[in-house]
């Protein structure tokens, strides 16, 4: 009997046998992740939205206060302080890190001996746990006997108060962050090694000098990697926490009070879960905004090889 399906689309949507088994296997094998996203992303995000309307200290029942947390956030001077601190830190340290990572990558891309040794040296500090790093740099920055001040002392420079000086604390953090350019350097190095030789040779034949070649061939070719590092760098820097928690706890005088640290204090020290949730949504929105801005702006300067 000829089976003329009046609904070929429906027939295609419900396969049988091997095909169906592949569908089921596909869902089954991916289920841990799908469940994970539901349980650890979607549900918490929704719950967090709900929490922003509550006043809750975890010891008593939550109290509905509607937009109370938002109003508090708008009037809270520490919100502005922490946003400024975080912005200062991010928009100085990310470009600086990128430049250092790129320069190191360019240097390592030359035909030098001992490249893997250099690579190890620059990468190793980035695998140190944030705690260890914080403790080490506490010692380096120590005003009395820290390494930095002893070295400065050799040149006759007076000791700097570093983390105890409200003007220098943030630059000190930025300086410290340079220690972990290793991974970025490796990404840039990989991108540099992927720049096609033909393009460089063609430019050379056309008479371009090495700087012109660098600016007009190399940089556009690695611009996707630069953009990527920029975006990931900003997302990460806007969420800086561990170093400020361990080293300064936001001091001196809130000079290193970063947003995530402030969220932590509100949630786990002052036990104001609703307010902490509200602040985290503020940071979320800011990060998403900056990511979108960067993606839009990237169309101007990023070159994609189609």
């Amino acid at each position, binding site marked *: 009997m000829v089976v003329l399906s009046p609904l070929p689309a429906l027939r295609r949507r419900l396969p049988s046998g091997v095909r169906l088994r592949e569908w089921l296997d596909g869902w089954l*094998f991916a289920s841990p992740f799908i469940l994970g996203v539901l349980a650890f992303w979607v549900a918490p995000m929704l719950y*967090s939205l709900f929490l922003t309307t509550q006043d809750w200290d975890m010891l008593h029942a939550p109290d509905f206060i509607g937009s109370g947390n938002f109003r508090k956030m708008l009037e809270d001077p520490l919100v502005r302080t922490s946003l400024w601190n975080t912005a200062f830190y991010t928009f100085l340290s990310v470009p600086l890190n990128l430049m250092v990572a790129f320069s*190191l990558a360019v240097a390592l891309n030359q035909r030098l001996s001992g490249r893997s040794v250099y690579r190890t040296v620059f990468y190793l500090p980035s695998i140190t*746990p944030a705690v260890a790093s914080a403790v080490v740099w506490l010692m380096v920055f120590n005003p009395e006997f820290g*390494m930095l001040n002893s070295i400065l002392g050799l040149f006759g420079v007076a000791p700097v108060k570093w983390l105890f000086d409200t003007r220098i604390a943030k630059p000190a953090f930025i300086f410290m962050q340079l220690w972990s350019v290793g991974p970025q350097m490796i990404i840039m190095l990989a991108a540099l090694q992927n720049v096609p030789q033909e393009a460089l040779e063609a430019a050379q034949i056309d008479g371009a000098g090495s700087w012109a070649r660098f600016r007009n061939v190399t940089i556009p070719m690695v611009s996707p990697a630069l953009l990527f590092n920029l975006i990931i760098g900003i997302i990460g820097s806007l969420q800086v926490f561990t170093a400020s928690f361990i080293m300064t706890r936001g001091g001196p005088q809130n000079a290193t009070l970063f947003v995530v640290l402030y*969220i932590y204090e509100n949630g786990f020290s002052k036990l104001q879960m609703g307010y902490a949730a509200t602040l*985290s949504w503020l940071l979320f929105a800011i990060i998403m905004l900056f990511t979108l801005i960067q993606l839009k702006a990237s169309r101007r300067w990023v070159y994609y090889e189609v």
Partner: protein
Amino acid sequence: MSAPSRRQSVRWRRKALRATLHALLIVSGFTFLVPLIWVLVTSFKRGAEVFIVPVQWIPARPQWQNYLEVFRLLPFAVFIRNTLVITVLGTMGSVVSALFVGFSLSRLRWPGRELVFVMLLATLMLPDIVLLVPTFVIFKTLGWLNTFYPLIIPSWFGGAFYIFLMRQFMMGIPYEMDEAGRIDGASSLRILWQLLAPMSAPAIATVAIFSFLAHYNDFMGPLIYLSSNEKFTVSLGLYWLSGRWGTLWNLVMAASTITLLPLVVLFFAAQRYFVRGIQFTGLTGR
């Protein structure tokens, strides 16, 4: 006497450039390493020696007992054990879930697959700060506070970076392997475990290393979920030590060295995988 040929002067210039580059790299490399060297050196000093200015780079008599003192002041052995439990179980979860989900996303065809892949990329980019408070409350409701569960269980549900890495890697394996297996009547599970997984050994190693690193270095997780001292991890232990006995820099540095040692060993043993994992995905690992 003839002037030096053009070729010779170019060669000189190239040598000079290379020498300058080496000099710059050595100086920068040194500044990168100096803090770590300082840690090691200080860990062997006597208490009073730490404060001597100008800096002494080689301690007069290496005080190995500083290391024993660390174990005496705080139950560091317990911290190490706790960290190992969390790290090993968590890493196992990352690897297994990455294998299953990566396989599903790269080798199986099913409706919604591309949507799930987009979800994967989204969770990589979304800031996870917004999850801090609600996740804590969820775990509190489950009664998992002050246990290792919040630090281990989520890994078994897949980490976006690891799944992404595994998927990308598996996409490079020729599909004929799966087809051969299917012709022989193998189920997806067998194809995964007996064909794909052995071939994905480099990716598995990379996932394992990055997951190990992430669990070992985690500070905020143990900070908010662990409250009894005997459950602390090495990260918390170091924090506790530097908070309570912070003035004993030699001991704090000894503890730091203890903390760093497994990582340095791991790095030197598996350098290729670190670099490859970063290059392969273009991500720095989370």
